């Protein structure tokens, strides 16, 4: 075993907290950024032996990685092991020409920009700091700095959002011509302030989202994007000189590959072990200042569970899932039933047998997967 070729680095800091967000975040605390980066590098040092000698992808997620103090961010980027794909998540209001140049200089070759919406009132509902123009400017700053692989995040099902709002958001996003788009339905966690504030409207959106999902898929595929994962789209290779613009780091998750995650609350999966670092910033910093591993929650994954996950994740992709290695996790009778309903198809013609979902099958992917799993 050569170890995982994928590294996730979590940067929890944000300028403010968005009501709907449930990631591990920490507001402000600029004085702690440098110390946190040192802790990250310390953890990485402790775990370096787990990783493969050469990495395929590194992903800096958050939080708002680009909210991190520039000097600390630069120190981190310089110290990270090189990788073919190096992605950083960014919030529009943090993207200045200087920051774009810094990222570029440090070898970042992909930026995922959290746009979420282009409607001022919807951005306000989400507690987003950026205005529509802030998003556009950020995008062009990145382009100007030479980024040729930019992804935009959009959210739908926002309280108050109408179908025409969504159409407008998709239109605005397409106008910018990003290489990649991630479109998520808003997930309002029960018990959060956000859910409490928007309860009735969220219920209405839940119904509307049925058609929203189809609308997103139709609009983006019509515009020449490949619907390669349930919530992710990239420009088709033919339009971009044959480049495969799928997010390689995320693809690793969906293909069931191993990965190492460092940082507060970060998750790693290596062979039959998955662990989550403590989500408490203080505890994380303290442990690493003593050069000790942070407190972790460990989950042991049986072969059966990993197979189950491979099916769950694999069926999110447009590429067929090779049946052989996961056959034990698949209920053949249910699979046949899904075929007869026109939701899945099994190919046994050439090479190993594969499962793929039809368009409608992918729209119902959760239910279909629950059926297919033995």
């Amino acid at each position: 075993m050569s170890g995982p070729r994928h590294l996730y680095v979590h940067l929890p800091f944000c300028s403010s907290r968005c009501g709907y967000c449930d990631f591990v975040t920490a507001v402000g605390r600029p004085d702690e950024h440098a110390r946190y980066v040192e802790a990250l590098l310390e953890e990485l040092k402790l775990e370096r032996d787990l990783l493969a000698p050469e990495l395929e992808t590194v992903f800096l997620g958050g939080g708002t990685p680009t909210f991190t103090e520039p000097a600390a961010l630069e120190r981190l980027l310089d110290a990270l092991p090189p990788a073919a794909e190096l992605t950083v998540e960014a919030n529009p209001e943090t993207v200045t020409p200087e920051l774009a140049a810094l990222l570029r200089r440090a070898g970042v070759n992909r930026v995922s920009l959290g746009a979420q919406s282009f409607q001022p009132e919807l951005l306000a509902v989400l507690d987003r700091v950026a205005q529509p123009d802030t998003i556009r400017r950020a995008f062009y700053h990145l382009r100007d700095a030479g980024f040729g692989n930019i992804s935009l995040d959009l959210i739908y099902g926002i309280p108050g959002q109408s179908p025409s709002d969504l159409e407008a958001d998709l239109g605005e996003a397409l106008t910018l011509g990003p290489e990649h788009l991630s479109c998520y339905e808003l997930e309002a966690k029960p018990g959060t302030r956000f859910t409490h504030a928007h309860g009735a409207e969220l219920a209405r959106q839940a119904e509307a989202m049925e058609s929203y999902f189809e609308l997103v898929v139709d609009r983006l595929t019509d515009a020449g994007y490949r619907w390669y994962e349930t919530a992710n789209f990239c420009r088709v290779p033919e339009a971009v000189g044959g480049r495969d613009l799928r997010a390689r780091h995320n693809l690793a998750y969906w293909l069931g590959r191993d990965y190492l995650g460092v940082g507060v609350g970060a998750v790693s999966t290596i062979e039959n072990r998955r662990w989550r670092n403590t989500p408490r910033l203080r505890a994380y910093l303290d442990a690493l200042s003593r050069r000790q591993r942070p407190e972790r929650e460990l989950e042991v994954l049986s072969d059966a569970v990993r197979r189950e996950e491979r099916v769950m994740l694999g069926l999110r992709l447009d590429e067929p899932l090779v049946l052989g290695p996961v056959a034990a996790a698949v209920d053949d009778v249910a699979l046949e039933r899904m075929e007869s309903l026109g939701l899945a198809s099994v190919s046994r013609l050439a090479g190993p047998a594969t499962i793929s979902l039809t368009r409608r099958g992918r729209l119902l992917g959760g239910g279909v997967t629950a059926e297919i799993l033995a």
Partner: protein
Amino acid sequence: MDQSHIRNFSIIAHIDHGKSTLADRILELTHAVSSRDMREQVLDSMELERERGITIKAQAVRVEWKGHQLNLIDTPGHVDFTYEVSRSLQACEGALLVVDAAQGTQAQTLANAYLAIENNLEIAPVVNKIDLPQADPDGAAAELADLIGDSPDHVLRISAKTGQGVEEVLDAVVERIPPPGGDLEAPTRALIFDSSYDEYRGVVAFVRVVDGRFERRQVLRAMALGTRFEAQELGFFSPNRRETPTLEAGEVGYVITGLKDVSRLRVGDTLTTEARPAAAPLPGYKDVKPMVFAGLFPTDSDDYPELRDALEKLKLNDAALFYEPETSKALGFGFRCGFLGLLHMEIVRERLEREFDLDLLVTAPNVAYRVKPPHGDWREVHTPSDMPNEVEEVEEPYIKASIIVPKEFVGAVMELNNDRRGRFDHLEYLSEERVHLMYELPLAEIVLDYYDQLKSRTRGYASFDYDVIGFRPGTLVRVDVLVGGEPVDALSLIIHRDVAYDRGRALVERLRQEIPRQMFDVALQAAIGSRVIARETVKAKRKDVLAKCYGGDITRKRKLLERQKAGKRRMKQVGMVEVPQEAFLAVLNLNEDRK
């Protein structure tokens, strides 16, 4: 003891009118139980009975009062057990008829009073709870006196709670209730008025010896069923079990039979001795038949053996409970159970869930039907799906309903009864304010929600009792429900032709709300034979995905998926359609829509 010093009596009362409290007070006064270690309501032994304030199984307690042996025979307090009540009363010469001074006569008071009169009992009227601020002892006494044709001065006024007047009650039992008049020299005859089951000793029969005497170790015979056994032990309760060598004419006690099957010794049967059998049994034995049926299915099909064992055990104590295996295409393996009535069904179901910890799905109850197919013989049908498509004649059980309400609710009650195919019999004023209505109704019309409706339309004032009076022809049809083209046996119902359309429509509409959207359109149809009378569609889902899923989300998403999958396992599969268990109760809730 000399029969002239024996008094056998019951207390009859409406629920909550104070029967149990009076019984407790009597035990206390006669020193059968000291008040210190007396558990409230000694006679009601089962936990469930205490909670519901009713007594399911009768027992008898012997006490001493001023040189007399008094046997207090407890009676079941509810409509479903009328036959058992009548047997208990037959074991007595008299009864205390107890009425709440604030509430006055209720339907059950009437029903039981009439039973007592039919059994030629001497009735001592008692107005209880005279200590309550809202009590109207004079009004209640006048009503009672009128009911039994006695003078209001003769009505005893007591508070069982405080003990006021209870000694006078005991004196009245001795003075007014006649002693038994059996023939001590005649061949032995004893009435079985109740039975219970003891895990170690087998069936215990509660008997009233009418003629002759029993001795321990005698071989006895139940005359109607022909069951023979040796009397392993004789005795009485006081209130604890006390063994005696003999039981004589006029006395009340128990016989331990050693029988391992309650159905071999039925309430109402007559015991005699094998050596010198009586020429004829005591009158009045009836084979009680269940009238209300429902399917009981374990929620988890793996629990089927547990359900079977639990029913077997319940049956040991409840000879009236009937069950046979039933296989439903939709619900799997279960049992079709027959009950005396609704309360009986409720009690059995609760005991199964509580004492045996079973999770049950109970289908909508239906009544027993008699059907005659063309060119065939009459037979009884206990499940709607067993009703043949073609029938020449159908008969359904009818009841005589007795309802007492304040006069301003007469209109509301009449309207309800008309909606339920009721036939007005007669009406009488019990007092200036309160009216007694008698109706004949199909039993099927009351099995679902009649009582709830009656209560809500009379703001809780109505009291209700009924008696099954036999089978009568009905214009009945079977309505089937098809889900995705597949008939669902558990949802079939038998109803009057005139309401078939409305009920069929309401049923599929209700199902549409209960069946979650699937990955394809699901047609819901109600049909009579091959004719579809109502149709609805559950539209296919258009989206069912877990929004985003990255490295940190995988475990949580997997668990969501596992939960989704577990949720499906709780669904019942009808063809390709997953139907939640609750949908099978749609039939039960139909009447919520029917105003």
